[in-house]
């Protein structure tokens, strides 16, 4: 019960801070839209490349990437907030006050999740308004958003682990850059089968490739490798939960 109070308190405070501060809210809403416009608009001709076989067109193809990217970066942006809380001393007071400290990490995770749900709603609305086709039924779409949600949780635990170890806003690039690289070394612009050379090798071993391709198959209504994708995303979330908890212990030791 005490853990729930901590989760609720931390989540409420984080969400209140984000939703009442345009400089924190707007970038997390605008960046995914911007990528969606730049990729789906500027590169739509790519679906004419011989061998490009995604049935719903390039807008839907890019939508899945942008949705997953917004989920991952929603977690990272919340990680920036954790780092800021440590830098301002708020997190130290929180450590003193919380009866169950793992609730702090979970509270930030709940905030990241709610924050991403708002972003996902906006991105989806814009994509549908832009004429995106949807092939999957309700269950497929639920699967797509659930997959993104697990990725969001994995990203916040990753970022929280960094923020709690380094406890400075200057850790921002360390949270952001690996996520950026893992996302962009997946088949972002064309399906895996059209990638060649080193990028194909890298994309083939990149765990996010399974998640991205499963997400696209769910939107298209022909799910493939969904179980593998969920296993990968859940595995990342589980591993980064341990990473975040160890980060919390590191912050506790630092006082």
């Amino acid at each position, binding site marked *: 019960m005490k853990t729930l109070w901590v989760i609720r308190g931390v989540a409420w405070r984080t969400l209140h801070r984000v939703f009442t501060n345009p400089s924190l809210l707007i970038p997390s809403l605008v960046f995914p839209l911007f990528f969606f416009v730049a990729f789906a*608009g*500027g*590169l739509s*001709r*790519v679906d004419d490349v011989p*061998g490009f076989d995604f049935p719903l067109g390039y807008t839907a193809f890019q939508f899945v990437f942008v949705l997953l990217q917004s989920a991952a970066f929603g977690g990272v942006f919340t990680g920036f907030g954790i780092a800021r809380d440590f830098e301002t001393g708020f997190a130290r007071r929180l450590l003193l006050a919380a009866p169950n400290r793992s609730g702090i990490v979970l509270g930030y995770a709940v905030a990241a999740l709610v924050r991403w749900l708002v972003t996902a709603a906006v991105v989806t609305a814009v994509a549908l308004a832009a004429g995106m086709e949807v092939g999957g039924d309700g269950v497929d779409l639920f699967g797509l958003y659930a997959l993104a949600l697990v990725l969001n949780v994995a990203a916040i635990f990753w970022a929280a682990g960094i923020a709690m170890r380094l406890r400075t806003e200057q850790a921002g690039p360390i949270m952001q850059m690996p996520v950026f690289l893992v996302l962009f*070394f997946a088949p972002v*612009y064309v399906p895996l089968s059209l990638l060649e*050379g080193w990028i194909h090798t890298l994309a083939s071993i990149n765990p996010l490739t399974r998640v991205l391709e499963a997400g696209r198959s769910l939107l298209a209504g022909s799910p493939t490798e969904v179980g593998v994708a969920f296993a990968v995303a859940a595995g990342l979330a589980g591993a980064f939960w341990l990473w975040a908890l160890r980060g919390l212990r590191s912050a506790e030791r630092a006082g």
Partner: protein
Amino acid sequence: MSHVFAGQVLVLARRSLVRTVRQPANIVFPLVFPLLLLAVNAGGLDAATRLPGFPTDSFVAFALAIPFIQGALFATMNAGTDLARDIQTGFLNRLSLTPMRGISLLAGQLGGIVTMGVVQALVYLSVGLAVGVRLESGPAGALVLLAFALLISVGFGALGAFAALRTGSGEAVQSLFPAFFVFLFISSMNLPRNLIEIDWFRTAATVNPVSYLIECVRSLIITGWDGQALALGFGIAAAITVVALALASVSLRTRLTRS
């Protein structure tokens, strides 16, 4: 008099450069991030070279122009952030009590940024050549490319300085970064304009001056000597430079009067 001015500029340019060199993030990020994006785009979009009408069979050669423009955007941020810090810490106020001329401050600040801009351009060019890109315009094209990099570093650096002098806030300068990024992405960065299918996007890319900056660099790499692309690129870069320098000078005068 001109000797004194040159001395002042040199001192401040050296300070600007040393300050940049002492912050590894200010060197590594502008060098690494554009090259990383080049690798990602060149790998991921190589299949786009199979589109009918695509001007080259190497996407790396096509995309090599992008780091040059991105590097200039980083110059904007660095120039602006450093100058804003000078304002916030009171350095500019103390400087205004000395015989130092305001314009020396601007020129010195830009001197450091231009040096970084040219170093960045050399690195991008070397990486491009190392991965097999051959300049269709030959060695003379490389020199023109460096001259262009120098010009856009001055222009974008002056824009950053203007933002800093106008707002006096490093955070405000940093917040310009997404806006500049929008200009970069809504351009002919990833596909030639004639291959952009969506009408509004093609129109936006056509009215976006950044498209012409990219196409100027790109023409030297994949076309050879294209007079129109060069004239448009250098013309727009020169116009940005003149306007930005004028705005920065006026803002500097206002800022020094206030302090």
